[in-house]
């Protein structure tokens, strides 16, 4: 079994989560206050959903290659695939959080305002706890999606063992080398991990939906 690939995929998924969830919460919350520019920003954030991974991978290669926009070459490195993974996961992280913020009854926020809370207090004490199931859902989706991401990671990272060769790329390699057993084991691991993650997410959804019913419009 390809332990290196599994560990690398986990490392990539956890790093992606750690960076994208705070960013997603911030963007989703900021989007609540936008009017005219909102459709454009939402469209840009949803692009990774509809673009072929090769197109996204191509632009990332161009942007991260050479000296890259960060001043150092980032292609074929862990940082490179992390950046790619962050971009690919934007819609998976932001949309559930945005929906959760939007579902909060505006009167509840107004009640918090007349109760004398500052904007930061409203965010921390009211909005964040009420949006937590959206945030959990975003985290689960991002985690599962990062584990399974293939096209963009292959374009940007290649398949350097221990550096950029994730589980899904390892599976592809094994199939290319007629290692059906190895590919099967890794595929099963990926399948079960994703299934557990999604089940947990649905479980959280079901419970919190009944608990917070009275707060929804």
């Amino acid at each position, binding site marked *: 079994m390809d332990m290196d690939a599994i560990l690398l995929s986990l490392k990539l998924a956890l790093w992606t989560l750690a960076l994208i969830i705070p960013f997603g919460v911030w963007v989703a919350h900021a989007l609540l206050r936008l009017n005219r520019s909102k459709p454009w920003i939402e469209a840009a954030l949803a692009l990774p959903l509809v673009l072929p991974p090769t197109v996204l991978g191509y632009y990332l290669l161009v942007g991260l290659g050479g000296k890259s926009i960060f001043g150092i070459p980032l292609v074929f490195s862990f940082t490179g695939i992390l950046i790619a993974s962050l971009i690919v996961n934007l819609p998976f992280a932001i949309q559930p959080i945005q929906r959760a913020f939007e579902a909060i009854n505006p009167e509840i926020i*107004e*009640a918090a*305002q007349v109760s*004398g809370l500052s904007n930061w207090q409203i965010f921390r*004490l009211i909005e964040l706890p009420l949006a937590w199931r959206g945030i959990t859902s975003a985290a689960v989706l991002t985690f599962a999606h990062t584990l399974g991401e293939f096209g963009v990671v292959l374009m940007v990272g290649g398949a350097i063992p221990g550096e950029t060769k994730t589980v899904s790329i390892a599976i592809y390699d094994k199939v290319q080398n007629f290692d059906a057993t190895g590919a099967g084991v890794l595929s099963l691991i990926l399948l079960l991990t994703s299934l557990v993650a999604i089940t947990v997410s649905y479980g959280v959804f079901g419970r919190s939906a009944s*608990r917070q019913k009275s707060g*929804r419009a």
Partner: protein
Amino acid sequence: MLKIKVSQALPNPLQIDIECAPGELHALVGPSGSGKTSVLRTIAGLSNASLGKIECGNQTWFEANELQGITKSFSPAERSCGFLFQQYALFPHLTALENVCIPLQNSEKDLTKRKAIAMDWLNHMGIIELADRLPHQLSGGQQQRVALARALVKKPNALLLDEPFSAIDAPTRQGLYKILAELRRDLPIPIVLVTHDLREADLLADRITVIDQGVGLQTASPHVLFQKPRNSRVAQLVGISNMFEGVFSSGKLSWNHSQYVFEVVDKGKIPPQTPVAWVIPADGLSLHPHAHANTMEARVDQISSLGQIAVVQLQINDGAHLITWEASAAELRRLGLEIGKNTHVEIDGSKIHIMPLRQINDPRHFTS
């Protein structure tokens, strides 16, 4: 004293000029969509009008003029009003106790003290045993008591109540009326109540402002409002049933589409030959079994009995007018009224109240 004088033409017309003294309960009454809630939101700082001034005590909360726009607008936190939302708007993830603690977040740093003060209020509202329940585990009436405790816990500068009694059953409502009466005794702050229920306003309020399409049409005590509505729209909105049209000319009121002319008090304010609307309150109407000089013949058209009270519709023999008369069951028997029978109606001219037929209520004509 809470003084609100605000106006705007867009997006929704608003033209309000009201004052509410500490300890006073001022009701804003009007049909749905008349802008009552907008007025409350404007007072609380949840939205702003485009012109006017809102003052409370010696503080100016809001000021705006045509030249400079809004020059001052306190945040809802700075205004510190207690706001009771129609749907309560409790924080669904917090217990009753935690909900009531929230407004103390910035004024009382010690969590134990916060909880003690909040517990006091829950006790005051008679729901101390529900402190650890989440909002969805409470009934409508209980949720409302929590919401009221939350609105009052920080000792607000004014209490704003948005249709507080509309979603609860009658017994619960009686309990809340009692709480409100106690509050007014113990807490001398201005209270503004929004309601579409006139009986409720009549029962609870010291003064009532009738609002229609965002415009305050009349502010008066309930008694004056029902006896002397300022214009026909107010009369219509406060549900005065006997309202008619006529032409007024130096002390004489001729009833439109009828041969009847009444002698009324002439205050010298109305020019001759002015078309007017007029109302006759219940105590200006009497029925007699026999005709005499001032009576009009009428036929009983309909009798609706509502317990001890009966509402009688009388068709005047001019054929053009219906008069509604409320009587006790005993009176009905005394007069021997039955559908189809004839009787004699007397209208006391000195009780007739005359009003302009229409009034201009375009906010653009409002001067602040």
